[in-house]
């Protein structure tokens, strides 16, 4: 493990790979800064570009972008109170009041530094965990793997939207779509309606582009107001002041990092939840008079920027580890990266680190170094990034649509893939309109083949004895947790109904 890790570390510092990581971080910051552009959207558009590269190089740019967006979202949250990404919503609460009283530069430097500290500390904790999980992961049976997949889907379905049943429907729809094509065990075409283009199944790349790029743009078509002018005079940046601020807030950063790292592992709990939880901790401490230096919440408490930013960046490592070791992504962005790995013919899971150590360790190491490249890019390019907030967003969104269509074609030079992208774009648009969570659909689509093949393999091994799902301890735990989530949902509905009956 150590040898492979060191080899990956050396490989990162190959000029091309390091440059791609830096470019990815810069792109991520750029995407994060502009409200309306998101991490999944950027990753979906980048995959066709990355597909022409070596897998390790391709993941440099993808990982850089993934990490960069987490930091970039804070800039617009602080300057114009419009978070560039949902994860930065909690940062706006105290960051914008800081900007209003002329401390925008300080707020942004705290955000950049806290993002670096959160991301790096969480990575340092996560790396040894990979080895531990890897040892146990190879002992996981087919029944366990299928139930872990179902648990991940259930968690995402219940946590990624306001309505668990809608989440469940979205996940089930994703699973159902994943079954389209020739059945790999029997060679029988399923649900293809006679279209030979569908025999190979629904291609992941155009589906992802449709869901996360085209659908998002179509849904955002009226929200084109972009030109909120940030105060250009207030962006001064001082590294020493940043370090001093971060040292003074070390406890808040530590708590934020722990919250983010732990929540990152849970599928469906995204960076935004981690940010809000960390903000809740800061708020409580300020109310107790232990933080804030006499300021109240809403008046621009610097810890209110540091806490959420460290938490939402710490999520990245937590979310990537289950994706690499178990093949279970934690959110939309990691689901897209899982899809990208599959496009390269790689299968993340228990054997990923032994079968493809160069890519697996490459992704892992890139995640850590990306925090550094994002820090450097953010410090160097803070002024141009702030100027980006003046760009006409309608033009950017229109360009995403064009890039999405051409990108879908570029995946395999087949116009049919553009049809798939458009179909998923329209599907995603309606799902968004009716508040069905898109990450649940994407996760179902991506995890579907893994869940089905392991489910059927488990039954094949036991000659059809379904009790295998109850006799394997890990599978049993997953089933108990799934039932627990269902019971909690039922109790929530019951309480809600009682409340509404009382108030009626």
């Amino acid at each position, binding site marked *: 493990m150590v040898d492979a890790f060191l080899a990956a570390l050396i490989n990162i510092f190959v000029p091309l790979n390091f440059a791609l990581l830096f470019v990815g971080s810069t792109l991520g910051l750029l995407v994060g800064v502009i409200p309306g552009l998101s991490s999944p959207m950027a990753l979906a558009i980048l995959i066709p570009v990355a597909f022409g590269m070596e897998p390790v190089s391709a993941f440099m740019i993808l990982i850089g972008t993934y990490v960069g967006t987490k930091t970039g979202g804070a800039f617009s949250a602080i300057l114009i109170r419009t978070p560039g990404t949902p994860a930065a919503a909690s940062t706006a609460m105290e960051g914008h009041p800081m900007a209003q009283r002329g401390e925008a530069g300080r707020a942004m430097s705290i955000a950049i530094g806290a993002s670096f500290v959160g991301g790096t500390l969480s990575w340092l904790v996560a790396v040894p965990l990979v080895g531990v999980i890897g040892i146990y992961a190879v002992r996981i049976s087919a029944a366990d793997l299928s139930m872990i997949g179902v648990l991940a889907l259930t968690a995402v379905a219940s946590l990624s939207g306001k*309505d668990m049943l809608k989440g469940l429907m979205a996940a089930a729809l994703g699973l159902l779509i994943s079954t389209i094509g020739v059945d790999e065990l029997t060679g029988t075409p399923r649900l293809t309606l006679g279209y030979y283009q569908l025999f190979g199944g629904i291609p992941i790349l155009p589906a992802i582009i449709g869901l996360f790029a085209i659908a998002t743009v179509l849904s955002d078509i009226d929200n084109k107001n972009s030109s909120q002018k940030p105060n250009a005079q207030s962006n001064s940046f001082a590294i020493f002041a940043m370090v001093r601020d971060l040292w003074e807030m070390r406890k808040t950063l530590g708590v934020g990092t722990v919250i983010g790292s732990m929540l990152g592992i849970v599928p469906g709990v995204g960076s935004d939840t981690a940010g809000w939880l960390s903000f809740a901790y800061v708020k409580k401490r300020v109310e107790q008079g232990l933080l804030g230096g006499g300021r109240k919440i809403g008046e621009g408490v610097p810890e209110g920027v540091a806490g959420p930013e460290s938490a939402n960046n710490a999520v990245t490592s937590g979310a990537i580890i289950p994706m690499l070791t178990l093949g279970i992504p934690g959110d939309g962005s990691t689901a897209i990266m899982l899809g990208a790995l599959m496009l390269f013919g790689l299968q993340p899971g228990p054997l990923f680190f032994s079968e493809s150590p160069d890519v697996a360790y490459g992704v892992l190491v890139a995640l850590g170094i990306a925090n550094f490249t994002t820090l450097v890019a953010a410090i160097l390019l803070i002024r141009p990034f702030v100027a980006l907030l003046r760009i006409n967003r309608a*033009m950017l969104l229109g360009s995403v649509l064009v890039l999405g*269509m051409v990108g879908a074609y570029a995946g395999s*030079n087949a116009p049919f893939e*553009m049809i798939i992208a458009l179909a998923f774009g329209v599907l995603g648009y309606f799902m968004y309109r009716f508040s069905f969570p898109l990450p649940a659909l994407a996760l179902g689509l991506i995890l579907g083949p893994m869940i089905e093949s392991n489910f059927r393999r488990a039954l*094949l091994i036991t000659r059809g004895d379904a009790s295998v799902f109850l006799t394997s301890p890990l599978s049993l735990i997953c089933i108990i947790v799934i039932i627990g989530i269902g019971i909690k949902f039922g109790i929530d509905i019951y309480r809600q109904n009682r409340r509404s009956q009382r108030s009626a």
Partner: protein
Amino acid sequence: MSNRLVREKIVLAVPIALAVLTFYLTQDSGSSGAGQTSPGTFPRLVAGVLGLAALARLFMPVSQDQSPNNTQTWGWASFLRAMGAAALMAIYIYLFPIVPFLPLTIGFTFAIFVIFQIRPIWRAGLSAIAASVLLYILFLYILRIAV
């Protein structure tokens, strides 16, 4: 019941219909050995979950539906613009094998920018030409994809 809630209930017919269609389309897929599940087993299992969840949502008390922001607000103008953009994409796909990439993409990008209300028109036109040329260079010369 408000229009929004009626739309919510009506849209649930789609997953229910999908579940029924899946059961219909997989009815003749048989098992081929001990423990060997048929190709239709998994899609049917998933379709069952989909249909049951949709039915549960359909019969859920109205109070559950009244949570704030449960459904995005519908503006017909934005809906028509989104569908207009989707129709443009369909035309782009249809013409893709017929019309050369650069003029087609310039036209498509210009139309998209107009739908996104980029004004004045000359600005939309110039931006469309610049964006399309950049895309052309990126895909043809940098990524070497035959467009």
